């Protein structure tokens, strides 16, 4: 009796242990399956995020590089900087480039360093000049990062997109600051309080005219002539109503906010560095804008009858 009871107990114990073992192993298998499935899904997910870990083709790289070059040209970098940035990035991808920068278009031949028959020539049209130094400085940083951090094609493309789409300073703040700037310009030329006030007002109206006209994509030359005309007409009222003792200074400094300083300096820099053709193109552009400012000023002076003074 005692022996039989012991036997039954033993069998019970064994069967319990076996059952526990089976449950544990089943759970483990299930957990492992879940883990495997999860990792598979995760891996697939990663694959969809980064579809091409393979090297980008020569067409893709050429497109990206010309996009960056055109953006630099539009935002007001000088030719030497464009060439340096672009060849630095191409170097990292294992290509060498020849770049011709013109006012209206950019021409680039990209050649593989390993296989020189693998080459491509791309021509990209430039958009008209819209100064944005934040983009210039960020793109230069991007080119150095490409060189130093081994960024992949996709990372560069993503960062380029981020840089190009970032927001500008609010146009109303710019309007006020330009007004203050031109007013202090007038004070630098020893204008009295009336002149400074008049110039502030004239600049606000003139610059607002320019912003609105540029938004409507009107020809640059017409924009500059009209803004200069409006601003100098307002500032010339100082002469008509005999405000203060220096109406001459008010009239002279009212149109100075239009002077295309950056294109002028860029053109001389280009000429000094040997990119004579681009430099002259920029110089002619800037000079024609200055002539337009003079025409606007001239017109309002004739209307107000100031040439007899």
């Amino acid at each position, binding site marked *: 009796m005692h022996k039989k009871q012991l036997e039954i107990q033993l069998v019970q114990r064994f069967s319990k242990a076996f059952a526990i073992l089976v449950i544990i192993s089943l759970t483990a298998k299930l957990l492992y399956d879940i883990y495997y499935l999860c990792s598979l899904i995760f891996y697939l997910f990663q694959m969809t995020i980064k579809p091409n870990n393979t090297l980008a083709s020569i067409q893709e790289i050429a497109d990206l590089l010309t996009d960056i070059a055109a953006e630099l040209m539009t935002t007001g970098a000088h030719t030497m900087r464009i060439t340096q940035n672009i060849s630095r990035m191409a170097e990292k991808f294992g290509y060498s480039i020849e770049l011709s920068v013109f006012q209206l278009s950019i021409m680039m031949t990209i050649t593989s360093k390993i296989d020189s028959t693998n080459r491509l020539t791309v021509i990209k049209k430039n958009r008209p000049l819209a100064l944005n*130094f934040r983009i210039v400085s960020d793109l230069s940083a991007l080119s150095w990062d490409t060189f130093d951090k081994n960024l992949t094609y996709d990372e560069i493309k993503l960062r380029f997109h981020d840089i190009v789409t970032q927001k500008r*300073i609010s146009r109303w703040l710019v309007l006020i600051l*330009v007004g203050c*700037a031109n007013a202090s310009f007038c004070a630098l030329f020893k204008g009295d309080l009336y002149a400074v006030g008049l110039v502030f007002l004239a600049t606000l109206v003139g610059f607002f005219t320019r912003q609105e006209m540029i938004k409507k994509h009107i020809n640059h030359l017409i924009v500059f002539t009209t803004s200069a005309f409006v601003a100098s007409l307002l500032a010339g009222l100082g002469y008509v109503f005999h405000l203060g003792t220096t109406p001459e200074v008010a009239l002279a*400094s009212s149109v100075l906010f239009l002077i295309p300083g950056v294109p002028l300096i860029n053109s001389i820099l280009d000429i000094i560095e040997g990119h004579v053709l681009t430099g002259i193109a920029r110089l002619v552009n800037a000079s024609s804008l200055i002539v337009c400012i003079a025409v606007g*000023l*001239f017109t309002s002076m004739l209307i107000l009858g100031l*040439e007899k003074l």
Partner: protein
Amino acid sequence: MINTEMIRLIVIDGALAAIAAIGFAVISNPSRKAIAVSALLAAIGHGLRFGLIHSAGLEISLATFVAASCIGLLSILFARIIHCPAEVFSFPSLLPMIPGLFAYRTILGLIKFMRTSDSIKAQGFMLDFFHNGLTTMFVLFALVVGVSLPVLFFPKTSFSVTRKY
């Protein structure tokens, strides 16, 4: 002949130039640090030019050249500090030195010359036109060449300022 009155004038001049530089800098949308630096450089440059003209008695285009090359050198220094291309803040800080009044007088001289029939007066207007026009041109050239000289002397440095390592 540097006295307190002169220093006061120079400081006022520099402050006005700084305001002007901030206004002209925001048109080209730089970062905030670059705006601050361009205001500082404009104040230094324009104050220096004012001092050179009025206390050292230098001619305006020569003084402009000295001030512009000073701005160019300092801009490369600041470019290394804040990792930003030098021209981003050296260009706006030059703008307060643009000879607007001379340019205006050039145009005025031209208009007067065109409208007068008295040949003696016309000679005077032509003289005005050439004097002011040449001054405008030389000051512009002095500005540009002055600011780009340091870039030509240190090409490696000025192209690698945005590198962070």
